[in-house]
Each structure stands twice: as C-alpha cells, then as structure tokens.
C-alpha cells in the first residue's frame, strides 16, 4: 500500500485541505446575435451580468439590403471585439440564416479565438429549420449547442466564468 504520499483527497476531511488560492482569472466572452430574436437574448444576458464587458449584436436578414451597409460599418468593431475575447459565443434562433456567423467565425478562427455556437430551438422546431441554421456554423464552431431555452445562455456564461 502506497501510504507514503502525504495525502489523498478522498475524504471530506482531506478535501478540506485543497488550496483555496485563486487559480484563474475571468474570461472575456464576446457575444454575437445572429438574428433579431437573439439580439434580445444577448441584450438580456449582458444586462444580467454587469462584469460581462462586450456584446455585439449582428443581425442578418438577407432580404434587407441595408444589412450589407451595416455590416461594413460594424465589421471592424466586431472583429476588434472578437480578437481580444477568450471566447466568441454566437447565438441564433433555429431557422435563422447563419451565414453571417460563418463569415465572422472564419475571421475568429484566423485570430485563434474559439467559437461556441448556441442555437435556440423548441422541441417541435422542424428538423430542416434546425439544419439550415446549424450547417454554416458547423465548420467554424468548436462547440455547437442546441438548447430549448434562452436561459441556457446565462447559465453557460456563468459556468464558463465568462
């Protein structure tokens, strides 16, 4: 029996000796909304957690021609944001066109910032809608989450210390 080592943290008593010194600093998450419904989710997430420093909404409506213009105007701000973030979280509603996410995801990848894509889908969302949103995000996201409720955003950010 190897009882020579000074401790094994397998009792509550031993576990109480775990070092309590801080071993990490906060994360910086940049939030991107990929459609109007998600903008509300992002706005709420930001309001709920004052220490969250960045949030950018990026709505994309292919039918809306002003979008391209908006995109140009905001592209630099978005990229600056992403570049100094530890994590980019893209949020989309199932059924939304996520092409814009794919575009920015590519830029994030070049800058070495990991992307988590969170798609909010009801249980009865048609599969085709979900696939349409997921497909462009799949190549750029290192983690894809399909959640039933928007409240997952807050829980996830908190869990990640973002």
């Amino acid at each position, binding site marked *: 029996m190897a009882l020579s080592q000074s401790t094994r943290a397998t009792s509550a008593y031993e576990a109480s000796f775990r070092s309590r010194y801080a*071993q990490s600093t906060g994360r910086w998450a940049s939030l991107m909304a990929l459609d109007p419904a998600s903008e509300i989710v992002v706005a709420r997430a930001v309001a709920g957690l004052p220490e969250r420093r960045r949030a950018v909404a990026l709505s994309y409506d292919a039918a809306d021609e002003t979008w391209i213009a908006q995109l140009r105007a905001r592209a630099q701000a978005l990229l600056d944001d992403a570049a100094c973030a530890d994590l980019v979280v893209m949020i989309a509603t199932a059924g939304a066109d996520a092409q814009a996410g794919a575009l920015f995801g590519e830029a994030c990848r070049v800058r070495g910032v990991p992307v988590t894509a969170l798609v909010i889908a009801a249980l009865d969302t048609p599969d085709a809608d*979900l696939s349409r949103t997921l497909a462009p995000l799949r190549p750029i996201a290192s*983690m894809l989450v*399909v*959640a039933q409720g928007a409240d997952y955003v807050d829980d996830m950010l908190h869990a*990640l210390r973002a």
Partner: protein
Amino acid sequence: MLRREQNELITRTGPGTQMGDLFRCYWLPILLSEELPFDGCPPVRVKVLSERLIAVRDSEGRLGLIDEFCAHRGVSLWFGRNEDGGLRCPYHGWKFGVDGACQEIPSEPEESGMCQKIRLKSYPLIERGGAFWTYLGKPEFQPELPEWEFATVPAEQSFISKRFQDCNWLQALEGGIDSSHVSWLHRGNLASDPLFKGAGGNKYNLGDMKPVFEVVENEGGLLIGARRNAEEGKYYWRITPWIMPCFTMVPPRGDHPVHGHFWVPVDDENCTAWSFDYHPVRALRQEERQAMIDGFGIHVQYTPGTYRPLANKDNDYLMDREAQRRGDTYSGVAGIAMQDASLQESMGPIVDRTMENLVSTDNGIIMARQRLLRAAKALAEKGIRPPGVNVAHQKIRSAAVVLPPDQAFKDAAAEALKVRPGVRQTSV
C-alpha cells in the same frame, strides 16, 4: 463553475432535499439478482438516497424494501431470521412483512392490537433485467416499470454488474457524459480491450484527437455528439445519450455489445456505478461474457466477496507507473472503469465546483446540470414530473455513424437512436 448553493442543491439527495425529491420520481436499480437468490434467502442491507433499508425476499417469494431498523428498539434487521413469510428481529422476536407491517409482537397479548399500530417504512421492489429496482417516491406517482432496452432483452443477451464508488453520484455521472476525456484517459484501451478492439470506428478515434462536440437537448435529457473526421470529407459521429437523472450510454463499437451505466446515489459521498452490456439481437458470446466477468470493458474485478473494486483508494488503484510510461495505460490505472473511478474519487467526496474552470467542450456537463436544477425546481414549485419518468424517454440507444458533413446528427441518426426490437445497433 457552479455557485456554492447550486452545488449543494444538485449533489444532496437525502430525504427532504430537492434533488432527493427528483430522484424519488424514478425506478432505480439497487441490487443484482444474485444478491437475493432464493425465497427465504438472507436479507441485504441497502443504502440508497441516504436511506438505510433492508431488502427482503420472504419464504413465499414476496419482495420488499423496508426500514433497516426494528421498530421496537432499533436493532438492525440484517440480523433477522427470514422465516414463514416475514423477517423476525432476533432481539425480542418482533416480526415484519415485506410491506413493513408488523406481524407479531410475541410479548404482547394478541388482543392488545399493538401489532396493528406498528409499520416500518417500506418501498416496492421488483426484479427486471438481472437487477432489483425500487421506487422511493409517493405511491400515487409511481411510474410505469422501467423499459430500458438492456433490461428488456432476453437474459442471454445481457450482462449487468455494479461496483461501489467513493464519491458523489454527480461526479460519476459527469464522467459518463464527458466524451472529451475518452481520447485521453482511455486511449490505451481501444486497441487492447477485448470488448473494444477491432471496431472500424476505432481508427477515427485514434486518428483525430481533437473531436468537435454538438450538444442537443431532447425530451428525456441530452444527446452529445462527438464528431471526428472520416474519409472523403465525411464525419464519424459518436452519439452519447443521457436520460434524466442518471442513465448514460456509451456509443457502440463494431458488433461488440453496447454498454452504459446508471449512477445511483448511495448517500451524498458514495454512489453505485451500474454497468450493463447487451446486444440488441444476439446472445452474448461465451468469451464476451467471460471478459465482462473478468473485469474488462466497463466492468471491474472485485475485492473477493464484495462489490468493491480490487483496485481502490486504499491501494492507490494498483498504480503502475511503468505501464503509464509505456503508454499501455494513460493514467497508470488498469481498466476503463477504474480509470474513471480513480480520477473521480480523487476529486474528493463532493468536488468543489466553485473552483473549476470549465471550457466549451464541457457544455454537455453544463447543460446536464442546468436541466437537473431546472427539473428539481419545477418539481418543487409546480409539481411537474421530470423528464425520464416517461418510459418513452427510456427507449433510446447510443449510436456510431459516418455522415456527410451537411447532416445534423440528431436527424440523420434519428432512427439509430431509437430502440427498434429485432434491429441491431447502428455502429461502425
């Protein structure tokens, strides 16, 4: 990371706790069939959800799970005599039925009616799929009997084992849904374990060490898809289901039996890891069954006469630094089950989740915790029955598939994830 109060809430399952009430909505496996082998056999002590109970199979073959301690002066009924349709306390001869009713108080005149006033707490006990199951909730909410596929296939198609694990149930469950550790901790076993080796999918596992994950919330819990590159731009997917509260399945490999787990709280600092292996359409081969008995795959070797693993914290899990150096095992501990158990126990009896630093690959764990907390709250505040109680949620399989890049695994593999009697598992 969880807040301190969240970590308390999600890990405590004793009577009167919110998570305890959640667990009390389900049928849970507690004993192997071999533990109550014949009518009138010795009773067995059971601790589950922090309640000390005793399982009885009386001389008439009736089953019950009752309070461990005699109503008279608190003697453990484990010392009891299982005789003539009841369990008799050896101290003063009080006798109890499997329903907890006091049948006899020898010192009292029968007319006194004292006996009718005494009843020990009791719970139902049923046998199914090589195990005894109980339900610790309110009788009026008792759900349909469990319908997990491993428990409903013919006995020759399945094998089930259990082992005690010295840590909180949630640590063990989180290991079951954390696909990302497989490429590390178990990498030495894919090629060598008789219940894993030879599968076509193994080469993708070993060839792509950076899987990408997709986590999808479904009716009963979660589906966790791990995606690795296969040939011609296709993806190799391994899909792990978690059904609330504590059932997980491992994606299959080739034609090997499919396996999975139940992680059942004993008390807040201990759990029972149940491990099952089954094949949906054929009997297990003799050599497969023998390998399971010998502790390969997800099973373990025991300390003789117990359900405690032979490799345990008191012998440092038989750590073999040479095997670790050679790469035969990644952590130096032999066997997939003990690789998991040793690390989970090392985190302490209830890990302090306020200290952890989760990353995006931990989303399966993050979402499972969120769903558990949400379901416990909905039950406590609105009386809503949680997911997983419905037997339709239990009819699920894990799967391993190769798919074109544009297909969502949940849709493309929808059929593969369903239990289809007479149809083999979907596997690569």
